[in-house]
């Protein structure tokens, strides 16, 4: 049957990135649960959807995609007229958006995901948190958040004065880190703290929590 389907796991940060975008656009979709414990994502038929064996995969009718940030951008452009605006019109505004998405992907996520892995996801697999890694990564995250603090002192959201994909891409990892001692890094920077409270209290951010 045609329609939007997301192949992933409701606890996965990358899957949640896509689900939040779909909720922001008020789109109907089906979440097809991929059994990670059983290695379903490393076998067929999932590998035909994503040969890298990572969730999520996505389809809109017969159009198929993977990579969460390619999916969210497709949703934001294809359904530009529906739900909340996730982009910013004009070539220069879109450039600022693109830059913000790259900063999230290369500067923020690489560090924040390691902190999420050490403090939360390792526990699911019975592994122990390496506090030395946490300390080292928190120093790096602090420097990124110092840059965010300066930016959010000038602009209500990271790319412009309204919520966009740039802010959205951060939400799933931040939600997990707020349940760890790393929360203090967000709390001790007033503009970052206000931004975090704002983006995590959006209805779409709340809908994806288990």
């Amino acid at each position, binding site marked *: 049957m045609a329609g939007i389907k997301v192949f992933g796991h409701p606890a996965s940060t990358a899957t949640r990135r896509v689900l939040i975008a779909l909720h922001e656009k008020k789109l109907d979709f089906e979440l097809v649960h991929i059994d990670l414990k059983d290695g379903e994502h490393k076998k067929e038929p999932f590998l035909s959807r994503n*040969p*890298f064996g990572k969730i999520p995969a996505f389809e809109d009718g017969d159009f198929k995609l*993977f990579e969460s940030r*390619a999916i969210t*951008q*497709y949703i934001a452009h294809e359904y530009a007229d529906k739900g909340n605006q996730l982009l910013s019109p004009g070539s220069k505004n879109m*450039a600022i958006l693109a*830059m913000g998405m790259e900063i999230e992907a290369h500067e923020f996520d690489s560090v924040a995901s390691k902190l999420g892995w050490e403090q939360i996801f390792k526990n699911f697999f019975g592994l122990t948190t390496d506090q030395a890694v946490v300390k080292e990564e928190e120093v790096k995250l602090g420097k990124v958040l110092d840059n965010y603090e300066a930016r959010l002192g000038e602009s209500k959201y990271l790319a412009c004065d309204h919520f966009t994909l740039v802010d959205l891409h951060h939400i799933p990892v931040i939600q997990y880190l707020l349940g760890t001692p790393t929360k203090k890094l967000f709390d001790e920077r007033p503009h970052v703290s206000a931004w975090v409270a704002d983006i995590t209290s959006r209805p779409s951010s709340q809908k994806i929590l288990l």
Partner: protein
Amino acid sequence: MAMKVYGDGMSACVARVLLCLHEKETEFELVPVDLFACHHKLPSFLSMNPFGQVPVLQDDDLTLFESRAITAYIADKHKDKGTDLTRHADAKETAIVKLWSEVESHHFNPAVSAVIHQLIVVPLQGEKSPDAAIVEENLEKLGKVLDVYEERLGKTKYLAGDSYTLADLHHVPYIYYFMKTSHAGLVNDRPNVKAWWEDLCSRPAFLKVSPGLTIAPVTN
């Protein structure tokens, strides 16, 4: 006024932007930043990019950093001239270009840049030797990525389809450096990947940029 690119042509990330400018037949000025003297960490540079990295682009009152955001901007601004790098006329085609650009960013780049860092950058810094364990771990990851590329490039001429796009372009500088190491077999042993690379490095835009890619790896 022509766009300004702050950086040095030997940086893979700067080369990414220069390739795009040449593909789009766009005039620009390259403003040198002395990376060895750490000028990219000075306040005057940090005011353009607080993350202290090259390249930075200035186009009138717009200042941009992150090479893949810069290439996207250039490709969009000049979509009506030069090579069509984004397939902008079709939303689904654009999404496929973005998909394979994300693959480069999240799967290819971390593995290849870790290898290049050990074999090229670490020796330049002079304090320690390349970490063989890191090289081996990342060569294995890179091999798995290239297996996926081998299959993909058996179906399409380029990663996102039958025309050259940003998804291919973004790979070029790091593959060029990687092919100078003793591990070029990872590319040469995969016939579709090899043919794709030979195509990419024969493009006129690449022939203009490659003379700037001057740093060389330790040969081990």
